[in-house]
């Protein structure tokens, strides 16, 4: 069982966009989420997901809003920002939103972190690349 699952923007965007190369894997992974599991987003990840739909408007924005309503969003507190800065300082390949997402994973004791960015696999053992099969720790 996956429990609390922190989603990075790459997974959410792949799930939303049928044209994304990772769409099948992201959709299958999210469809496999069990009753007791909860997808979680950092507030910064929510921004990344929403910018495109905000530009597009209309049905794209509605779809993104519907998707986001199925995820808990974690606010970025001062302590979370401090933790993200530590992560970012130690891993140059991490983006700032990525560091925040990993800090969120630590803060809530997440069971897994889903992303399509392979650079993350060496940063945290909970990082999982969705492949369409069963996921979790």
């Amino acid at each position, binding site marked *: 069982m996956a429990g609390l699952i922190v989603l990075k923007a790459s997974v959410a*965007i792949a799930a939303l966009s049928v044209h994304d190369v990772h769409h099948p894997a992201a*959709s299958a992974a999210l469809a496999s*989420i069990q009753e007791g599991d*909860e997808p979680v987003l950092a507030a910064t990840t929510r921004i990344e997901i929403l910018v495109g*739909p905000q530009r597009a408007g209309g049905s*794209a924005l509605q*779809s993104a809003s519907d998707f986001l309503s199925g*995820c808990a969003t974690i606010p970025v507190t001062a302590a979370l920002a401090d933790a993200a800065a530590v992560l970012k300082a130690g891993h140059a390949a*991490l983006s700032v939103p990525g560091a925040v997402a990993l800090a969120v994973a630590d*803060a809530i004791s997440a069971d897994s972190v889903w992303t399509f960015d392979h650079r993350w696999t060496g940063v945290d053992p909970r990082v999982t690349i969705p492949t369409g099969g069963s996921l979790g720790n």
Partner: protein
Amino acid sequence: MPDPVPVVLLARLALDRTEQRKALGAICSWTRCVVVCATAASSERERWSSTRTVRHELLGAPPGQAERAQRRRRLLAAMGTVDEGTYPPGYLEQLDAGWPG
């Protein structure tokens, strides 16, 4: 003396002393307010020692079963409904370029 007014400092203003002097001088001359610097209070740091407490505070109360099921249905229904123009190739890289690393 007016009440203190919180002011959000963006990174450049928080780190660059020259910009600070210019901007804070302008703020004070306009509004005569007191600039409040946000720092992580010791009490907030202490809360992080209890993972369970933080988990609850950040996530809030868990939604009921019916609400959770409804949210899940909306999330699943939204999948695959956004066209290519919404997230063009290189979308995330372009966004991240605004966060110089």
